[in-house]
């Protein structure tokens, strides 16, 4: 029987299985179990959630491997972990311990200020952040099996995620109505390979799954992003920086499933109770540019 692992189909396929679901940042096995019990489709194993990375400053690296392993042992759902942009040795290590997905993430301090990892060589699939269509297609050209908006991680502020998902989907829409003779010039302007530009023009979608990340803090945030065309949701700090992680995680899962039904989103939001407090947010206009995470990597 012919068997092939690590193919484009099985790598992109795992992302397809996560659609309509919520992926949650966790820093302990106990949090991973809370996430799984709430109905998360996967967890992102981290030493610190983005809000704390932001607060601590310094260099943020791949997480402790014992911690990642203990989270893999604690749950049956897929486990993702982050590497620094361009740090292919961190990625090799995460593949060696068998994580299910690698996030080459701007949330960590970039290791390479020019190049991302060539992701084709790996059996483990990669997810990467993007702010617009060109950036998304460059990451796919490098081998990403899934794209997420960058948003502004750890900010509790949805505005950047909205901007990025809209920019990606506007870019896709423009290509679908572009005459064929424009595609080469469009590829030049997007900074993306022609064959991917032609794929998007023909199919009206990315060739991989598109999730939202960066700033989701409430059930309504999740419903907003799903209605704007995200195929699923990453929640980083939004759950474990709220005052009731169990309730928020469940409510965000329910709102992601029933995003087009405001009654259900209202019910699950009300069920949070009158004492529910979402994480504190940051007005991004007051942050110095040097503290923004999304511009890392392009």
């Amino acid at each position, binding site marked *: 029987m012919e068997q092939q692992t690590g193919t484009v189909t099985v790598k992109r*396929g795992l992302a397809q299985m996560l659609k309509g679901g919520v992926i949650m940042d966790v820093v302990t096995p106990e949090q991973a179990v809370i996430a799984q019990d709430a109905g998360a489709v996967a967890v992102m194993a981290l030493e610190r959630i983005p809000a704390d990375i932001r607060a601590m400053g310094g260099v943020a690296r791949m997480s402790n491997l014992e911690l990642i392993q203990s989270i893999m042992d604690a749950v*049956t759902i897929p486990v993702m972990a982050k590497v620094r942009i361009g740090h292919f040795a961190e990625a090799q290590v995460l593949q060696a311990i068998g994580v299910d997905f690698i996030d080459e993430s701007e949330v960590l301090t970039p290791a390479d200020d020019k190049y991302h990892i060539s992701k084709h060589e790996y059996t483990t699939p990669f997810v990467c952040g993007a702010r617009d269509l060109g950036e998304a297609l460059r990451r796919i050209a490098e081998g990403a099996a899934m794209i997420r908006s960058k948003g502004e991680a750890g900010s509790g502020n949805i505005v950047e995620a909205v901007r990025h998902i809209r920019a990606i989907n506007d870019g896709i829409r423009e290509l679908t109505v572009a005459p064929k003779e424009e595609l080469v010039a469009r590829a030049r302007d997007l900074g993306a390979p022609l064959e991917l530009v032609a794929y998007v023009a023909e199919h009206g979608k990315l060739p991989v799954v598109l999730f939202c990340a960066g700033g989701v803090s409430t059930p309504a945030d999740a419903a907003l992003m799903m209605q704007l065309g995200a195929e699923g949701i990453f929640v980083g700090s939004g759950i474990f920086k709220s005052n009731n992680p169990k309730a928020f995680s469940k409510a965000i899962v329910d709102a992601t499933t029933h995003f087009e039904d405001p009654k259900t989103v209202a019910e699950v939001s009300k069920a949070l109770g009158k004492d529910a407090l979402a994480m504190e947010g940051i007005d991004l206009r007051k942050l110095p540019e040097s503290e923004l995470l999304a511009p890392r990597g392009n």
Partner: protein
Amino acid sequence: MATKKTIGVLALQGDVGEHLRALERAGANAIAVKTAAQLASVGGLVIPGGESTTVMKLLSRFGLAEPIATRVRAGMPLWGTCMGMIVAAREVADLDQPTLGLIDVTVRRNAFGRQNESAEVDLTIPALGSRPFPAIFIRAPWIERAGPHVEVLAERDGHGVMVREGQVLGTSFHPELTSDDRVHRYFLSMVEQTPTVGNSRDAA
């Protein structure tokens, strides 16, 4: 065909769109099912690939577990792919995970390994003819135990990966990720051969 039944794809989480498109390619009317009202309008149901822990929780939170079980016990054809087969199974090996118990099998989750062991396999399925089926296994389960009335339609490495008991079909792999519609057509023929039952509105 005036009597052609509508097929539902359970749309709480997972690769719903891929199944809808594959069913339409195979000639069916297909709709996404998120509510009991939508469930009542279909003559067969597909539970897609996804995360079984997530979908079992959503099924019970939104009151769909019982209606699905009732329809299937009354004869509505059901096909579960990967997660869907786990949800339909009687039990999950070594895990205290609730299931709908609609097919008499014990499944082992992530049986072939984690994502690095996910694979494309040329699978022999005698019921679909001699040409191998391009089976895509993603963190896939296998059949650990099959009850006496369960037919094992395909095996990989000595473990059942495609099973049928009456009107319930299960596959460990994902035909919806390929352009080969033979398993979808096989399920559609199960649906067409089923007399209309329960509260399906497709009788006309």
